[in-house]
């Protein structure tokens, strides 16, 4: 055991090497273009020069395709269940907002902003006008904006439910962080079409793959900022909690989370903005909303219409940004350490 522990790194590296060799052998044996006899490679070294040899080809594509196929065939019911749940939640939000009279919705947004911003009149009035202008630009935008908002709200809800606990887990253990960080990097760098299209195959056209795509696209900043927020809490404050005998749970909910909240709110704000950026892309897989107006305008070469829809998206972004941002700011004023409040 002791020897194993000491040489952990060496064993790990040997393991990696073994996997690499195994990949080489399997890809060679599965290749259709390999030479008839392996001995040829040792006599004729022409494969080392010029082009990449055709038999040196990892069959990742085949693996993923067959894996995807079995996933779809055998576990289709799981995706159907997810699909139904998300669709149900979406309809609930959407129908509620669409059936409500539009002045009432604007009023709701104004009241929400007023309290979230810590009773700032300027922000509230500004947000009220922005909301009004979404419908004012084109009557059809009102409903489209609500459809977009509904998709985003569900997406953000999923982000919060999954992202914040993940962030907490990362802040608590360096090992978890090392595992999750590359996954987040992957989610942030992989082109969104790579998961939009499989999304369609699993969930069908429409809103649900858009929600999934929104989640994948928007959750990384929330996870990162939750993790960062918790780790940035002053070490002396944490020591104080420890010194007075706080348990791990008491420390998390009584000290770390409240003090990390401004950062977490910033994460939710970033999450919202990225979700909105996804809206236009998602319209290409048939998701209804403001995005498809932009797409329609472009397809008809109707620059005015595309611009109008674009402005509507910007307005929606401003509204959502102001609400989430200002809430974070009011929190920050109170919890910022050692800054005097101007009176």
């Amino acid at each position, binding site marked *: 055991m002791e020897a194993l522990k000491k040489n952990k790194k060496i064993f790990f590296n040997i393991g990696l090497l073994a996997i690499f060799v195994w990949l080489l052998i399997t890809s060679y044996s599965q290749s259709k273009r390999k030479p008839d006899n392996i001995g040829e490679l040792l006599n004729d070294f022409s494969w080392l020069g010029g082009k990449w040899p055709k038999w040196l080809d990892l069959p990742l594509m085949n693996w993923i395709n067959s894996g995807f196929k079995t996933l779809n065939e055998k576990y289709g019911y799981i995706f159907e269940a997810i699909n139904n749940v998300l669709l149900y939640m979406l309809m609930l939000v959407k129908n509620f907002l669409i059936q409500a009279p539009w002045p009432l919705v604007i009023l709701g947004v104004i009241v929400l902003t007023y309290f979230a911003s810590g009773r700032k009149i300027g922000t509230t009035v500004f947000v009220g006008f922005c909301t009004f202008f979404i419908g004012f630009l084109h009557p059809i935008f009102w409903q489209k904006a609500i459809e977009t908002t509904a998709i985003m709200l569900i997406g953000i809800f999923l982000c919060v439910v999954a992202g914040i606990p993940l962030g907490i887990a990362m802040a608590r253990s360096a090992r978890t962080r090392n595992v999750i960080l590359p996954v987040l990097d992957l989610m942030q760098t992989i082109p969104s079409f790579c998961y939009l299209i499989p999304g369609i195959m699993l969930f069908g056209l429409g809103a649900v793959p858009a929600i999934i795509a929104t989640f994948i696209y928007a959750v990384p900043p929330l996870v990162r900022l939750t993790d960062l927020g918790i780790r940035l809490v002053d070490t*002396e404050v944490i020591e104080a*909690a420890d010194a*007075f005998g706080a348990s791990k749970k008491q420390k998390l909910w009584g*000290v770390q989370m409240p003090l990390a909240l401004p950062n977490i709110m910033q994460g939710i704000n970033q999450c919202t903005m990225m979700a909105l950026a996804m809206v236009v892309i998602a319209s290409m897989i048939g998701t209804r909303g403001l995005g498809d107006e932009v797409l329609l305008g472009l397809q008809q070469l109707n620059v005015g219409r595309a611009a109008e829809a674009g402005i509507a998206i910007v307005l929606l972004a401003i509204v959502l940004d102001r609400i989430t941002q200002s809430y974070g700011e009011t929190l920050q004023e*109170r919890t910022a350490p050692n800054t005097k409040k101007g009176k």
Partner: protein
Amino acid sequence: MSKIEINNVYKIFGNNPQSVMPMVREGANKEEVLEQTGHTVGLDNVSLKIEEGETFVCMGLSGSGKSTLIRHLNRLIDPTDGEIIVEGTNVMSFNKEQLIDFRRHKMSMVFQRFGLFPHKTVIQNVGYGLEMQGKQLEEINKTAMEKIEAVGLSGFENQFPNQLSGGMQQRVGLARALATDSDIMLMDEAFSALDPLIRSDMQKQLLDLQSELKKTIVFITHDLDESLRLGDHIGILNAGKLVQVGTPVDIIMNPADDYVKAFVKDVNRAKVIKAKIIMKSTKDSDDIDKTNLIKVNEDQFIEEFLPQIVCSNSNCEVVDKSGNVKGYISNKELQTSLTKS
């Protein structure tokens, strides 16, 4: 039995502290260990005893390991080797629950940069320890208010820490530590971040509180004047090693090595040495001229009676509280005690 006993504690920071232990035990110093293994020696074979009801001041420059040492007492840091015994129980034997219970009831702590919870009001901060003890809200608020009054912050209980000045924030920290009613109070450079006037104010407040409460206080500082004023005993740390433990007068009169000598070099001796320390007892005082005497209490500092002697060109008669003559001081004794070694 001492209140706190620290036996042969070592602390090494690095990837594999145990592997360095044999080398440190053989007496390798901090620089050698760092150079050869990349590990930092925090504490090097520290042993000391702290008695109930005394103020023990631990002094050293930054990096000498004093903050590390105080964090061992409530196990915010675990030692690499050695034992820490509080009231006869080895703290190292505690499991998680026992440790939490121990921290809730036995020890409280005051921090250099206050360590207040910025999202809680003053009264919530002061009541935090009681909240952890699981007390009812009513009782928490009652006790917290008492302590807020004791440190002179009445009227500020519903403010947030960032609305208070540094001195007031540290009073909150002090009140929070007092509120749990633990026997032992750890103070980690508690007054170092305050300006000189407020610092001396806070020292006085601590002395006043201590004369009533008689807690066991472990106080960390890098300021010799502060340690002489507050400490019943002083321990001096250098590079993780405890170089001298003694009363304030011990430290000044008999510094153990050059490091301690450098420390006490600039101290105002007249301010810390009492009459009874330097007096000649009655039977050795035949050579002192007793015609022109000034009465001095044995607990008075030299500073307090020095001007009188200089002006009147007389000698001192040292008496105790009930007026009995204990000894005499002539200019010769004053000269030796005030001359820097």
